[in-house]
């Protein structure tokens, strides 16, 4: 494992374990998931137990211990989106991608996650693909939205 990115993050917070959540966030942003070796390395450098770091890493929804796909789909299941039928969109994606929320397709192309409100409730249901927001979504519009990504036309 290349320890450089981990060291950079540790330095950024001066090896202070009170910033653990922030460090893990930076690591998640950098690697798109939290590799086990990186967590072990961090625990050692911070002088904290592995139990503590894994407890924190598994407690928060922002962290993933498994690699995510190239394209990340987030469907909002906040209340405002739910009452406008966001659940049907998730069902459709589950069927089409053959994965459950939290999962990644076997070719590592797509990850599907649900989130509780993205703060754009007025235009719900909201779907975010690789950081791009789309409002007033539906199952039918979803197919159209994903097409360019499937064909590999759109890079993340």
């Amino acid at each position: 494992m290349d320890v450089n990115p981990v060291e950079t993050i540790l330095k950024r917070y001066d090896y202070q374990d009170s910033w653990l959540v922030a460090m893990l966030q930076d690591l998640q942003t950098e690697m798109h998931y939290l590799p086990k070796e990186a967590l072990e390395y961090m625990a050692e450098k911070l002088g904290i137990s592995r139990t503590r770091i894994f407890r924190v890493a598994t407690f928060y929804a922002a962290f993933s211990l498994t690699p995510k796909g190239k394209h990340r789909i987030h469907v909002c299941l906040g209340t405002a989106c739910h009452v406008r039928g966001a659940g049907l969109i998730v069902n459709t994606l589950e069927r089409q991608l053959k994965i459950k929320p939290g999962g990644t397709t076997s070719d590592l192309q797509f990850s599907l996650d649900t989130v509780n409100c993205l703060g754009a409730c007025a235009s719900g249901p909201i779907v975010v693909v690789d950081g791009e927001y789309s409002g007033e979504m539906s199952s039918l519009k979803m197919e159209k939205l994903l097409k360019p990504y499937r064909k590999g036309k759109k890079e993340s």
Partner: protein
Amino acid sequence: MKRINSVEDLEREREKIRAARDPNKPCITICTGTGCHAAGCYPVAGALREALRTGGIEGEVDLRITGCHGFCERGPLVVINPQRILYQRVKPDDAPDIVSETLKKGKIIERLLYVHPLTEEKIVREDDVPFYKLQKRIIFGNNGNIDPTSIEDYLAIGGYSALAKALTSMEPQQIVEEVKKSGLRGRGGGGFHTGTKWESCRKASGDTRYVICNADEGDPGAYMDRSLLEGNPHSVLEGMIIGAFAIGSNEGYVYVRNEYPLAVENLRIALDRANDWGFFGKNILGSGFDFNVKINRGGGAFVCGESTALMASLEGQPGEPRAKHIHTVESGLYEKPTNLNNVETWANVPYIVNLGAEQYRQIGTDGSKGTKIFSLVGKVNNTGLVEVPMGITLREIVYDIGGGIIGGKRFKAIQTGGPSGGCLPESLLDLPVDFDRLTEAGSMMGSGGMIVMDENNCMVDVAKYFMNFLKEESCGKCASCREGTKRMYEVLHRITEGNGREGDIALLEDLSFVTAEASLCALGGTAPNPVLSTIRYFREEYEVHIKNKKCPAGVCKELITYRIIPNQCTICGRCQKVCPSQAIRGKIKMKKPFEILPEKCIRCGMCSEACKFDAIEIV
């Protein structure tokens, strides 16, 4: 920028900024809140800039990128000042016309105006649009007037004058008294009296005290804290500095939700700029008072909005709450006295200090003073953020401001208070909105989510939705919450699947009682509210699910059938094309209405979305 060391310097700098600005110079403001962002405001901004350049009036018109104006439904929003002309649903192609017609010739572009849905009258000025007219936007209104990344904009509208007043002409205890007298109650959900909380923290023993801003905004369906932080971060920071001074704290934190990257960014910029100017750091405005703030991002756990869990998270621990035998104002972050307030609570502070408690008290009801910002969303025509005086009725919010229900459907319920709140029926539409009245009705003020539901929303499904949310978000530390939410979810789930049993309603009530009574924190303590309120007001709907195995609203998948209405079917074949499970029989050539095969239908709803003739019904 050189640090400002006195109030006189501050006022001199403010005058300089104001003198350099001509209030009559045309200024286009563009809303770039999340709603407008999703609707494409940035291409519009680019097109306007380009049109100003090609029109040769680049230097004569200001273009200002602002935070959320609130009327998200009609975005992208563009306002032309000083006339305050509101153009809505603006597209990049409209930019040349806006420049050549409105800015150059002073003509109104009719097609971009808001049309009153009932009178069909075209409304020119922003303030005349009913959505805005009935609001009282004392906290949120400035969002539309300033560029959140410009501290000069904030100073130009009088920013940091409350801080100057507090630091130089008020004693800390006097500020606490003023906030107490104002009647301000916490906007984060509980409605705790802010001044009383400050006082307890101020009096707690120890040298180090912390103040924290709770920007975790966990209520799914609410985004006012986000929009305040994104659109007017200095107002929140100014409130925090005043509070810290009153309480006697030199160190603060803002705990922001991880899902809000723009809020974090704008807050960071605001903090840096305020630092440069000398509103943070040592000896603020020459008063001898020192204060610094750090920004922390949350990890995406609802429970971290709870005070003790939030503090655990700030310490780099899992965000689990602890029992509150000892209050956080005495022993909170790192076991030091800590005062936690919500974003909107902090933003009210400069307003109160400037205006005086007496004036502030004039707004609102006996027990709830001031305004509240709500996120009015769901099945309502004018979705967006609304700031209303306490005491306004739900009906005024939904119908007068919100413009009624989408598609002329029937109002069914309004959900307030997020996962800790409840669903209120039509018969309670005349309820005045304040902390105590909402609680009496079995709901809660909460942080300000207001989700409108119509006849096509199933109340059992809504209760199940919240219970699913809560069981996922329960941290698992105490058994009653961990197990209680799970069991309640299971019972609700079986009811929506058609496996409800006689006695299930009583069982839910039992589980509710235990979960509420025995849980460690308010997550479990209020978790039953969505269930109890729906049972209280929509019991019949539960009974139909349990006894008749039907979902009257047509939501619960196992209890509904999709059907094509033969004489409405135009035999176009669109439904068949989109059906993912070959459940639709028929051929265009046969000239016979299509048919859905119930045994193959997976109730995905694609056909009914594709049908342009409303020929598909749910029974």
